[in-house]
């Protein structure tokens, strides 16, 4: 009988892992010391801001499996639930190598080349969103070798033993090519489970030939959605509960976008519900297409969307200058980075490591960005000004390009919430999604 994926490997089983994590968590909350199984490398200086919205002296917020919740100013080293593979092994060949990712989020040509180089057939299996992707993985419905991962789902994937520890000896491109802030990121100190893939910020995209306001010059640009009566039916928000509610929080200068304060979340939802009557707000994630095509004029959007819009979706005859993008300054703009992880289900763990290294290669990563994806990889080699002079990004969208300085302890990033926090945000978004009377 085939065992469930998370029981298949040696080392700690999930029960042991939970037990040790719980012990570790209680140790952390009680004494603030290092975790037994789950060591946190948080320093006193980095803990200037309490996690979530808890005040000083309140207990540490814990995520799935009792893991401490990482924040940009609170670095967390995740426990190894098994040893990484040994160094110096030859990559497996033959058969199929499965990459599990968002649809159309990786250049298939590059996958083919990888398969050719290592003598495997590379299969691309898409998921709708990361949460449902993880659910399918956990259920055993898919058995990929590597998968896209987001930092806010990392705790869950590690606690559920869905992803394997990485041996960085196989991934030299990480230290060589990637921004210092993401080589050993706050959510995965030591890069035990992830390597970065792309990065982006959340802001506002609009058609400046349709929207008359100078959004970037407004005292609070997020207010544009609450002044969008003239753009009824042409205004949309991202279909993401964190992004949507987080935007309403930021609009009111609540900079903790990982808050679990019910009053703040409820108020944010109430504010969002005002948009029904103001602009008949729409919800969706097609802004990379609808904005350049002109079927939407004003949209909450990720920075990569507008680069993709320029590269792929701008209709012939429509100049790139009609596209505008705004993002807030550091600390007020949500930044994110996607990652790659090795799935526990892999039958080709060495090759999976090689794949991670391949995706961090300067040439491969850059080609994936400019020839297909539009989402920027965090490469040292990428210079925003060069991207503009080379015509990869038009000058009016230069602010869609991020740099290493956009990340760091004083940046703002959506991260894992406690279970109660997730319920709070989910129910809040459900309330908004219900559409009112």
């Amino acid at each position, binding site marked *: 009988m085939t065992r469930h994926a998370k029981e298949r490997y040696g080392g700690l089983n999930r029960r042991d892992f939970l037990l040790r994590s719980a012990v570790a968590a209680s140790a952390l909350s009680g004494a603030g010391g290092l975790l037994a199984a789950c060591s946190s490398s948080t320093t006193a200086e980095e803990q200037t801001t309490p996690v979530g919205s808890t005040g000083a002296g309140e207990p540490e917020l814990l995520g*799935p499996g009792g893991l401490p919740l990482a924040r940009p100013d609170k670095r967390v080293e995740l426990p190894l639930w098994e040893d990484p593979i040994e160094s110096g092994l030859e990559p497996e060949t033959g058969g199929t190598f499965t990459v599990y990712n968002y649809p159309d989020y990786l250049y298939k040509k590059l996958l083919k080349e990888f398969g050719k180089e290592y003598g495997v057939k590379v299969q691309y299996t898409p998921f709708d*969103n990361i949460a449902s992707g993880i*659910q399918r993985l956990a259920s055993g419905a898919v058995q990929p070798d590597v998968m896209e991962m987001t930092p806010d789902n990392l705790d*869950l994937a590690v606690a559920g033993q869905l992803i394997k520890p990485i041996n960085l000896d196989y991934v030299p491109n990480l230290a060589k090519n990637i921004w210092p802030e993401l080589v050993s990121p706050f959510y995965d100190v030591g890069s035990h489970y992830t390597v970065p893939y792309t990065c982006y910020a959340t802001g506002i995209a609009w058609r400046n030939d349709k929207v008359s306001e100078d959004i970037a010059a407004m005292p609070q640009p997020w207010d544009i959605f609450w002044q969008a009566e003239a753009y009824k039916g042409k205004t949309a928000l991202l279909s993401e509960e964190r992004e949507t509610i987080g935007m309403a929080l930021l609009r009111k200068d609540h900079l903790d976008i990982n808050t679990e304060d019910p009053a703040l979340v409820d108020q944010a939802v109430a504010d969002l519900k005002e948009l029904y009557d103001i602009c008949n*707000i729409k919800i*969706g994630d097609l802004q990379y297409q609808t904005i350049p095509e002109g079927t939407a004029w004003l949209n909450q959007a990720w920075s990569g969307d507008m680069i993709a819009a320029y590269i792929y979706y701008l209709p012939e005859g429509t100049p790139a200058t009609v596209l505008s993008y705004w993002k807030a300054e550091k600390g007020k703009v949500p930044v994110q980075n996607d990652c790659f992880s090795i799935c526990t289900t892999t039958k080709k763990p060495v090759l999976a490591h090689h794949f991670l290294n391949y995706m961090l290669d300067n040439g491969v990563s850059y080609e994936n960005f400019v020839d297909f994806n539009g989402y920027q990889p965090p490469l040292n080699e990428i210079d925003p000004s060069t991207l503009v002079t080379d015509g990869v990004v038009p000058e009016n969208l230069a602010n869609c390009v991020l740099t290493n300085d956009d990340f760091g302890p004083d940046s703002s990033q959506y991260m894992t919430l406690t279970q109660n926090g997730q319920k709070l945000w989910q129910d809040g978004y459900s309330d*908004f999604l*219900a559409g009112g009377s």
Partner: protein
Amino acid sequence: MYRRWLWPGFALPGVIWLIVLFLVPFYTVLAVALGTVDPILFQAVPIWNPLEWNVGWLNEVVHRLGPGGNLTDVALRTLEYVAIAVGLSLLIGYPVAYYIARLAGRTKALLLILVIAPLWINYLMRMLAWVNLLAPDGYVNRFLTYTHILSEPRDWLGGRPSTVILALVYGYIPFFILPLFAALDRIDQSHLEAARDLGASRFRTFLHVTLPLSKLGILGGAVLIALPMFGDYYTPNIVSGAAQTTMIGNQIDFYFHGGPQPTIGAAITIVLAAFLTLLMGYYLWTIHRSTGQERTT
């Protein structure tokens, strides 16, 4: 003995089908709705033993769907959209079914094929086609402005309830027409002739003979389209996208699509199923009564 079991035996594949593809999945949803959630992976953990069922999620959903709850409006909106869509399907579908059944003559088969033809194409594909047709510069707006029905293009896709309702009608109306056609086609011509011979006008014949005799077809068609409409979430997503036009299916989809409360999605499904069972029950009761009346006459 052999003969006794022969004819009921033919029902066996259908019974197995019903058990495997309806009862088992339904019980699974029930076990999920009344179950718990894995605290790490947030996967639903069904509880199969009814004695251990946890009614907390179901209570919460009933409360949220009840008066003053935050899902009341979306539930009422769904009811409204489905009621209007079924009503429109009746207005559009009845004349079509009537014509094909009673008046089409030789073209009956061809017309039936034309009614069914859209079903050969995937539902989502058909809806996506409408997105192009209804676009500001799409053929619908071009036609309406060319014929001066509209002075300027209408933003059909700007989050209008009317677009969602019309899309529902378009998507499901063949399923309404087919059982109605079958009911109308089965009406004995002699009944109509008898009515006319007794002096009834065409209209009165229709009102007092055809319409009552096609009631089961109307009900069957209505049930057939209303059930999937209540669970629909992709139609409003595709042709509207506005929060104010979402349906209860969007909430089920949302809660099942990740997060710590898949049980809420299952509980909404159960409440919806209970409501639909009432509709189905009325339909079955009507059939039962009608069959009884036929036997007594």
